[in-house]
């Protein structure tokens, strides 16, 4: 830095000297000790697991691709995807009702989220499974005990799968309603006004202007809900929903390999959530295009302004 006084004058003949920075870092013994302890702990944990004869690695490996396990895996995937799709639809409906001008619709939507977020999912699942005790039959026809066009018996209609789907989807809808509502509310009210000033109807404003912008806010928590749902489906085991945990339990009730079967189930859950996390990452990237535009704006501001002629 010998050139400081000279730099101010702006007349410099000699080239700037190269002043490399290869400074020595202060020692950090604490970090080394902590790392050593962590590594030691992990190695010890792995060692005890691997050499433990009670874990039956051969059984785990054998059942990982067992037909019944794969069947349960498929049911888990179906339950997750279907209940998320139905839940999202219910959530959008409830959110739009919540933001409508009608106090009746607002109250109905509020009651829905209040009830289904306020009671445990486990209770709801058992309730749906036993709905036949309250309503022995379902039908389409005149309400208030009028004649029915079609009628089904609850015992035939409510299988463990449909009960699970009802419970998971309706419960998910209540949570998605809040997520969608937050997304819609995040859109600048001026956007709505600009669209209305063009003469758009409420529905056009929602579909063309508000929802596309709300998606950026809705997508990330929806991804989290999906990953969470993959694991929540295991609750369905209380009504024997034939998903991953249920079939694992059925197997260990026969062969008494409780821990091995739980590990088999866990391995598949981890595989599913990992795939979903990767998918979530890419979907979020796609919806970050607004931020991408911000970055280009910063770059553009570094360029001289392109003056538009009028």
């Amino acid at each position: 830095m010998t050139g400081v006084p000279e730099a101010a004058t702006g007349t410099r003949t000699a080239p700037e000297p190269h002043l490399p920075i290869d400074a020595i870092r202060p020692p950090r013994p604490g970090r080394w000790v902590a790392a050593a302890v962590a590594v030691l702990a992990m190695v010890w944990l792995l060692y005890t697991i691997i050499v433990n004869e009670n874990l039956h690695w051969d059984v785990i490996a054998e059942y990982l691709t067992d037909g019944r396990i794969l069947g349960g895996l498929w049911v888990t995937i179906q339950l997750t995807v279907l209940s998320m799709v139905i839940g999202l639809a219910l959530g959008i409906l409830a959110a739009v009702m919540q933001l409508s001008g009608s106090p009746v619709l607002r109250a109905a939507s509020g009651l829905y989220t209040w009830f289904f977020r306020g009671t445990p999912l486990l209770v709801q699942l058992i309730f749906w499974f036993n709905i036949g005790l309250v309503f022995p039959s379902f039908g389409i026809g005149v309400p208030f005990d009028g004649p029915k066009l079609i009628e089904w018996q609850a015992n035939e209609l409510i299988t463990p799968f449909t009960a699970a789907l009802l419970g998971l989807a309706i419960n998910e809808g209540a949570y998605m309603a809040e997520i969608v509502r937050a997304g819609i509310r995040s859109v600048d009210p001026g956007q709505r006004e600009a669209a209305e000033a063009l003469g758009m109807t409420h529905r056009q404003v929602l579909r063309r202007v508000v929802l596309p912008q709300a998606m950026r806010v809705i997508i990330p928590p929806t991804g989290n809900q999906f990953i969470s749902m993959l694991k929540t489906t295991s609750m369905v085991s209380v009504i024997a929903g034939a998903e991953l945990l249920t079939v694992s339990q059925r197997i260990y009730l026969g062969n008494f390999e409780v821990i091995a079967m739980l590990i088999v189930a866990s391995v598949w859950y981890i595989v599913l959530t990992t795939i979903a996390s990767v998918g979530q990452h890419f979907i979020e990237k796609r919806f970050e295009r607004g931020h991408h535009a911000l970055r280009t704006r910063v770059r553009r501001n570094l360029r001289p302004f392109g003056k538009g002629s009028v």
Partner: protein
Amino acid sequence: MAAAVTESASARPMVRIRSVRKCFGPVEVLKGISLDVPVGGVVCVVGPSGSGKSTLLRCVNRLETIDSGRIWVDGDLIGYAEKDERLHHLRPSQLCAQRQDIGMVFQRFHLFPHRTALENVMEGPVVVKGVPKAAARRRAMELLDRVGLSGRAGHYPSQLSGGQQQRVAIARSLAMDPKLMLFDEPTSALDPELVQEVLAVMRDLAASGMTMMVVTHEMGFAREVGDNLVFIDGGVIVEQGDPRQVLANPANDRFRAFLGQVL
């Protein structure tokens, strides 16, 4: 008011505002405003912030409802239908039809951020009027050319300067072929060096015969382009007249004080 109905269409003003009052909760922001804008006329509305000038503009295309009074645009009563000497609220679809004829430009542009400049201009005709996309695109390109931005058609709003965004917003309104354009402080959110490019577009629009109501602080624009200057303070019209005359000779003390602050 009965006279308005019998008047011939040629003498009928584009905008007729009569005794309009508007409250926000306990605060009365418009305390009885009456104003005519002739066809092809340019009215500049000025006044201190909170005087109600923006509210008045928003009442004309019913972004705000009024508590009493009447507003007609091109002979149509805004927001209501008169039948058997009673007013009936218009259905939402009828309101949308009325708004199609009234363009509005906002202080903060409110372009749709998820659409390009071209798509922003196409959006109204395609969605509201059902114009085929190819025709809407051609017309949108013409309008972007008119506001000097045909080279920015593929840009997203966040990639445009404030002045460019506002010019796209003007093109977006013009795409609906409005009879009347409302400008709500169109240059107030702009950096000073970008104000002129927007005013130039508006000047051009006024010269083409568009009826315009402009809420603004640009006294130079009002003097040059305006046919009528309206000073609103405290929810009432305090002074109005030919801009060149009232700006040179403000009669009212409050107007004089206001001009002292903005000029």
